[in-house]
């Protein structure tokens, strides 16, 4: 425990602390544009310079270890002058007017410049060549705004294990991007948007569809309905001053009605529907293995996450037969809306516009995949992120905090607790097990409060086993069988999990993968910045939402039951397959 003196105050630092962390403990927030929680320091932005007694040069606080007897000064004329010059130089190459930038409200560079009182650019001159890459539906890159902090590189390489982008070239000419000047569409970018979630400026962001949504809402010929993903309720409040994990589903419904949506729904309904389809698919494969002894593909791997699907298609195409054929809840909702809902409301599906609010940038890409036209139309027309929704609420001038909670509309209504936890790592697994265990044994899932504790939390790869006991007669072949399951979140962890199965070290019956750390609650479209503390707060909120629901398992959702009775017949029926599954 070295004692470090920061600006005259002694603090006890942990052995692995940097000067940045020691200064934080002493009450000084040193600015940084590159350091991220849980990632090794890059020392790239040079904004965190401090004076260390006995050292002639200024040191980067993020990459300088704290040591016993260290005397640090963060507020000297030398530090201020250096910091000012660094920020002025960053601004001198930074393209674009703040007022026209997506990040005008939360740009970290702008904030630091403001704190330093920089209001003019003393270094007018050449700017590097600017390239705007909008080759994929989910995200854009604008190299003119890039400050080369390399957070996106660290996320894409070290956390997601993809390496789609890297610094190319040298010095002034450096461009953060794919090899050979390629566009994102030409490389293995899964559009998870984790790069967009950590970009301190407006150099990477979601492809905005706000204008399209407003235009649809203003078109008198269109009926415009909206679905909100389960992750939104635990995060949207952050855009309006609520702490992470504040549950705002009811206020979100109210805000969407004020915007003029003709039907306000929650994707949670479709999450329950997904469990009926995917749970049935899992039990079908278990029956093939344990009853019929025929060749089948186990483990069943979840398919809700489009980032994961793109990853598997590119890097592990041999896994495709193992991945569930179920569409994601977003797409199931869209298909059901443009068939069943359109019919029951007597609307021409050509005049029905389905908007999704998602925590995710990859969902924008998912919606335009060729398989996602099962209704005969594009099943989901527009996808906006949590951040885009907050912008729209501000455009309308709504006082979000003052809105009274409202329920979603019929006929899809409120969903079960199982659907709430679809948004967090381990949640889809737990939801599926609640229903599968009930179907097989006739009893609720054992375990405290219906939870599968070992698959909750932020460990990268989590495992659990569920044993079927006292099975119903039809499922007696599963008597005593232990279904071993695994959960991975973050694509780097997903890769480790897949590799351990490929090497034959591990064997599972059911695997859940979510591309983003923490699951959808940490998605690339969520409010910035997402730390583990924020992730845990959002997850805790969803579990508490779940525990407060009268129904906790998807098969208990009466609206889903009615949908089967009136339209889809039964899970995995011919029509269900046609509409709710992809056909590989």
């Amino acid at each position: 425990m070295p004692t470090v003196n920061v600006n005259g105050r002694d603090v006890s630092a942990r052995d692995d602390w940097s000067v940045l962390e020691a200064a934080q403990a002493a009450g000084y927030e040193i600015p940084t544009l590159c350091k991220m929680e849980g990632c090794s320091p890059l020392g790239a932005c040079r904004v965190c310079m401090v004076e260390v007694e006995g050292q002639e040069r200024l040191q980067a606080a993020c990459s300088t270890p704290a040591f016993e007897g260290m005397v640090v000064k963060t507020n000297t004329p030398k530090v201020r002058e250096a910091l000012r010059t660094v920020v002025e130089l960053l601004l001198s190459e930074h393209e674009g007017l703040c007022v026209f930038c997506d990040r005008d409200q939360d740009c970290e560079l702008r904030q630091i410049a403001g704190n330093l009182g920089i209001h003019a650019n003393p270094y007018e001159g050449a700017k590097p060549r600017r390239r705007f890459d909008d080759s994929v539906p989910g995200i854009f890159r604008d190299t003119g705004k890039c400050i080369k902090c390399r957070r996106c590189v660290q996320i894409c390489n070290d956390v997601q294990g993809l390496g789609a982008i890297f610094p190319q070239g040298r010095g002034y000419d450096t461009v953060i991007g794919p090899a050979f000047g390629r566009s994102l569409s030409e490389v293995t970018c899964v559009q998870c948007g984790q790069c967009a979630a950590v970009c301190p400026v407006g150099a990477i962001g979601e492809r905005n569809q706000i204008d399209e949504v407003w235009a649809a809402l203003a078109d008198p010929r269109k009926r415009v309905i909206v679905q909100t993903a389960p992750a939104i309720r635990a995060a949207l409040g952050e855009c309006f001053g609520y702490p992470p994990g504040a549950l705002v589903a009811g206020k979100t419904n109210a805000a969407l009605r004020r915007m003029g949506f003709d039907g306000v729904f929650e994707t949670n309904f479709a999450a329950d529907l997904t469990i009926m389809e995917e749970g049935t698919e899992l039990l079908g494969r278990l029956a093939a293995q344990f009853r019929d002894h025929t060749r089948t593909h186990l483990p069943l791997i979840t398919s809700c996450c489009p980032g994961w699907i793109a990853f598997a298609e590119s890097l592990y195409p041999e896994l495709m037969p193992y991945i569930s054929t179920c569409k994601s809840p977003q797409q199931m909702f869209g298909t059901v809306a443009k068939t069943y809902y359109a019919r029951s409301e007597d609307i021409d599906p050509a005049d029905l516009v389905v908007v999704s609010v998602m925590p995710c940038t990859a969902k924008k890409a998912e919606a335009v995949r060729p398989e996602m036209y099962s209704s005969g139309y594009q099943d989901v027309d527009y996808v906006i992120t949590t951040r885009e929704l907050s912008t729209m609420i501000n455009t309308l001038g709504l006082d979000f905090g003052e809105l009274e909670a409202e329920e979603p509309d019929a006929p899809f209504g409120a969903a079960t607790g199982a659907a709430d936890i679809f948004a967090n790592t381990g949640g889809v697994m737990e939801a599926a097990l609640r229903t599968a265990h009930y179907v097989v044994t006739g009893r609720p899932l054992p375990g405290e409060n219906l939870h599968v504790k070992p698959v909750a939390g932020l460990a990268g790869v989590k495992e659990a086993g569920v044993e079927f006991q006292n099975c119903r007669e039809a499922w007696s072949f599963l008597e005593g069988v232990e279904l071993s399951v695994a959960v991975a979140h973050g694509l780097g962890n997903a890769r480790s999990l897949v590799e351990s199965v490929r090497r034959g070290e591990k064997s599972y019956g059911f695997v859940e993968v979510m591309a983003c750390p923490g699951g959808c609650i940490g998605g690339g479209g969520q409010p910035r910045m997402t730390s583990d503390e924020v992730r845990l707060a959002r997850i805790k909120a969803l579990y508490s939402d779940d525990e407060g629901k009268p129904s906790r398992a998807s098969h208990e959702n009466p609206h889903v039951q009615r949908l089967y009775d009136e339209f889809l017949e039964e899970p995995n029926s011919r029509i269900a397959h046609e509409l709710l599954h992809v056909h590989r």
Partner: protein
Amino acid sequence: MEQTKDHAGVSEAREPESDDLLVVDRIVERHRGEQGALIPVLQKAQQAFGYLSTEVIERIAARLEMPVSQVTGVVTFYSYFTTTPRGENTVRVCLGTACYVRSGKQVLEDLEKTLGVSVGETTADRCFSLEIGRCFGACGLAPVVMVNDDVHQRVKSTKLRELLEPYGCSNDVDGGPAAQSRGSTERNSTSGGSA
């Protein structure tokens, strides 16, 4: 759902492999399991082919199990590596601090004019490639130009044609066909290292 997407570097296609790629495989094999294998592999591949083609770079990335973007990141960082076919002779103009202040930049501009190419390019007859370097360790002799492994000291813009002539295949150097002989009394092959 389509089974595969055609993503760079992960193609499933099994095309007949060119001899070049087998050479790359052998180079990588010699460095397998080494920390920091990338740069020596790139150096040897460039020695073998004269430059690093897209195909060769992608093969190296695949064999070393690295993202292609990371390999091109290294290739484009170091001025030593080139992704275009080189001329028979490589002319490197030092723009290190000492050479820069002693009119290295002017020498470079005049060389660009003389050869009719920009930095990173090769003359149409493949005789000369023009590169810049960052200090050859011969600062006392600034400005310095290297042609292949030869160090030319205190280079003057007015003497560039004479400097290039001995390497001779360029029709740009003093008109007529130049001698293939590479001997010259003006060369100084004893000092300096590689870039």
